[in-house]
């Protein structure tokens, strides 16, 4: 029993213990995400968000999507999280946050209630859906070469559009954040 467990864990963590391994990073993910929502200190929130990005990447890896997991880590941890902390530092990080007036009569509680209601609806839909209790098929490794061929073949238009979008975003962000030339 012990032997099987460790062997399968070492050989193939994705399929080990019937895929339940996902729950470990998922727990970290949800805790970190909750912390980043609740924390008042913006930098702490951003760091928790970074942790949740990392955990999300590990969840992807545990689901067998190796490439997406690494891309998630590279893009979110390496770029998005850093851009967020940069933005926090360039604006004033120590300014006290005022309470939200969008739900003027309800305050933050209103927002939380709305989010909870959404959660209830989503969970209800998920757990009543007929396809929901589909069992997990054994993981099949996706060769990176196949992904590349698909990107350059069937999805090449989407790839080019993404390229244009990223270029536009890069130029746009640079122009927006540029100091006005005197």
């Amino acid at each position, binding site marked *: 029993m012990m032997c099987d467990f460790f062997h399968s864990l070492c050989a193939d963590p994705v399929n080990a213990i019937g895929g339940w391994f*996902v729950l470990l990073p998922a727990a970290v*993910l*949800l805790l970190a*995400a909750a912390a*980043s*929502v609740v924390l008042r200190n*913006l930098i702490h*929130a*951003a760091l928790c*968000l970074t942790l949740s*990005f990392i955990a999300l990447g590990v*969840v*992807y890896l545990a*689901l*067998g*999507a190796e*490439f*997406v997991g690494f*891309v998630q880590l590279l*893009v*979110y941890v390496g*770029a*998005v999280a850093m*851009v*967020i902390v940069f*933005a*926090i530092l*360039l604006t*004033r990080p120590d300014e006290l*946050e*005022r309470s*939200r007036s*969008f*739900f003027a009569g309800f305050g*933050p509680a209103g*927002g*939380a209630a709305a*989010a*909870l209601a959404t*959660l209830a609806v*989503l*969970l209800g839909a*998920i757990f009543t*859906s007929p396809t929901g209790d*589909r*069992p997990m*098929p054994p*993981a099949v490794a*996706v060769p990176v070469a196949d992904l590349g061929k*698909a990107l350059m073949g069937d*999805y090449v238009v*989407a790839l080019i559009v993404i390229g244009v*979008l*990223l270029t*536009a*975003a*890069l130029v746009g*962000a640079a122009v*927006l*954040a540029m100091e006005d030339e005197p």
Partner: protein
Amino acid sequence: MTLQIVLGISAILFSLGLAAVLTRSHAIMLLMGIELMLGAANLNFLAFWRFSPDPAALAGILFAIFSIAVAAAEAAVGLAIIILVYRNLRSVEVDDADQLKG
């Protein structure tokens, strides 16, 4: 392990992102909430790919990759806008950017 559990995780993540957007007033917190929601969406794509009977169909993975790229672009532009707003209004509270109201 069933699809429901992964989708449930993703739903909780989405609601957390939504809660961040609805309860916080700091513009960067809003952006962070949006990133969480996008992550939840990506998780859904990957979950459906993982549990699909045809593992050779790569649409789920590719969609997730595209979505990550779009999220990166969105974060860059969004934060540039926030910095610009801060420069003009000296505030990053979303409620302060109300000059256009009639």
